[in-house]
């Protein structure tokens, strides 16, 4: 465990030094600022309420979870795998007395921590902005649901990251991984519209699964099914990704 911890700290430090994480955080904050400006504009221009203090964080989440967050998850993941292979840094990482499984797991944990940190920061600032600028509509219930929605959004994002990890180990160049990821992402989005009855198995639809936690009647069975689908796909993607990572010649 100590070895894994060391590997994780190492990965986190690399992530932190890369500035990409910082860029992601700054951009997320920009979304909040721009979103709030638009809302204030619509409110004074059209006289609509658009979003109360508790709807604002949900609005931010619905935008971020389909745009910036997947994008930066992809960038950070590609950096952590393809980037290191390309710069031959992976050789240094792998020559340490740590098994490849632990390094692989540490990398994925680091990416997950990055996603969670971004989500929590977004949660904090969007709630703040919501309370300062918008009509108060908060109840304890809606507050708890909002917090929950942000936290559970981590799961589909990790599945997405694992999918990208598999791609980085399949394709050599980081840029091709990036474009292939974007194409697949858009493709799945379109499929989700045309085959809405099967959309629950698509990664892109799962990104919106936080909506299930907002419902008045808590749909436990549906949440369990969605969770198991995500769990199943992440086990598959993790194993496949690791298999390729393990076999990779340096």
């Amino acid at each position: 465990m100590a070895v894994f911890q060391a590997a994780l700290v190492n990965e986190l430090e690399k992530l932190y030094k890369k500035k990409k994480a910082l860029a992601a955080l700054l951009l997320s904050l920009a979304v909040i600022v721009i979103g709030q400006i638009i809302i204030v504009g619509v409110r004074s221009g059209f006289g609509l309420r658009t979003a109360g203090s508790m709807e604002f964080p949900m609005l931010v989440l619905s935008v971020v979870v389909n745009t910036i967050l997947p994008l930066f998850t992809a960038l950070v993941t590609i950096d952590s795998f393809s980037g290191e292979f390309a710069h031959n840094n992976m050789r240094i990482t792998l020559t340490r007395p740590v098994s490849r499984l632990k390094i692989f797991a540490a990398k994925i944990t680091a990416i997950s921590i990055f996603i969670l940190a971004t989500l929590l920061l977004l949660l904090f600032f969007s709630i703040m902005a919501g309370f300062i600028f918008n009509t108060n509509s908060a109840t304890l219930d809606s507050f708890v649901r909002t917090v929950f929605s942000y936290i559970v959004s981590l799961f589909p994002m990790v599945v997405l990251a694992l999918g990208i990890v598999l791609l980085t180990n399949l394709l050599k160049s980081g840029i091709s991984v990036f474009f292939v990821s974007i194409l697949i992402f858009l493709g799945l989005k379109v499929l989700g519209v045309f085959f809405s009855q099967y959309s629950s198995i698509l990664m892109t639809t799962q990104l919106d699964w936080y909506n299930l936690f907002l419902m008045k009647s808590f749909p436990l069975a549906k949440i369990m099914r969605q969770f198991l689908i995500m769990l199943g796909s992440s086990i598959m993607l993790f194993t496949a990704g690791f298999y390729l990572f393990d076999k990779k010649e340096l």
Partner: protein
Amino acid sequence: MKLTKKTTMVLSFTLGAMLLATTAIADIAAKSGYDQLKDALKFTAAQCSDNLKSFTMDISYDVKDNGKTLSFMNQTEKCDRTKTAREETTSEQTINGNNYSRQTYFDKATYIRLSNDDPTYYVTEYTQERKDMAFSNPFKENNADDAEKIADAIVGNLKDNVVVTENPDGSKVLSGSLTEVQIPSLINALASFEMKQQFNGQQDNNLPHLSKDVFVKTIDGTAKINKDGVMESILGSAVVSGKDEQGTVHAITIEVLAKLTNINSTVVTKPDLSGKKVVKNVIKNENSGPEISNPQEFMGKFKNDILITKDGKFVKVGERIIEITQIDQTSATGRYYEVYKTGFDQYATTKRDFSFTATKSKDKNSPEYKFRTDAGINEAFFLDEHAGKIYLNESTTFSEGGIIFDSTFSPDLE
């Protein structure tokens, strides 16, 4: 036993795949409440159009502002498929405060209409039998599939909000409720904007003029399905909240209710017209609106005035004349010419004079006669039997040399 790395990997991959496959199948098989609602609607529509002998459908809506009714409509529709007859009674109060009520009766050969402001029964008799007038299934319309896909996409994640309660006797209650947190912000904004425009577009002072803080507060719905799978009632309501200029909060409630009752026991009766004031009209079928029964009426001279504007007044400078010398259901011949009054010859530069042989459009019931001018331009004229006029559809529709364009020709009976 110590597992090798390879077996562990194969095992965990298989485990993951199985987990994914089984839950995915379970998830697709598990019909969400939204799907059950859709199925019930389709089944009910199919029953109404194909199986039930007769039924009564009540549709009503009302709009209230803080409990005060602004507008409502009640419609009772009785359908008898054995007689292929339908009877509709509607009463409504529009948002401007006007009251209407209307009674209509349809069967294969007749259409009878009576409205509240006029004691006359308007009867239309069709010489050609019409197709089944009782009830048509909206899900069998051409665009129904596409509309369903679009609806599915819009509903998206909200479809899990429909909760199903099954009763011991096999009947079901589907219900759903959305509050502002669950309604997607974009939909909320568009809906509130639409509401706001609806109210503010009216000049009436009784109506609240929402100007600030407009938003959709809640959307609720309940549907009752009987043990045969037929939807007996569906109720939807929405509350839109907003403030007017004075800062008063208005809660606008919109309720829509549809009920299906008296299945197989509804009786549709043709209104008794004896001793009533009746206006009767006989036509071939409902598509034959503008058909010309007697084109011979249009033999002769039709004209209109050529006008110009001079010193802020209309001045007549001449006449355009169409002279039809032969006309029947397939073709027409005649001449078009313009005559200018003396002293206005300077306007006659665009003067036209030509003969034509027109053929009637192949489209059934169309009163259009097409012809080709000597200059090789396709033009057409239309006969309007009701107004007794000819409309000339010219390729040049702009006014030339200050002349005012007019394409309507009236009969010259002098």
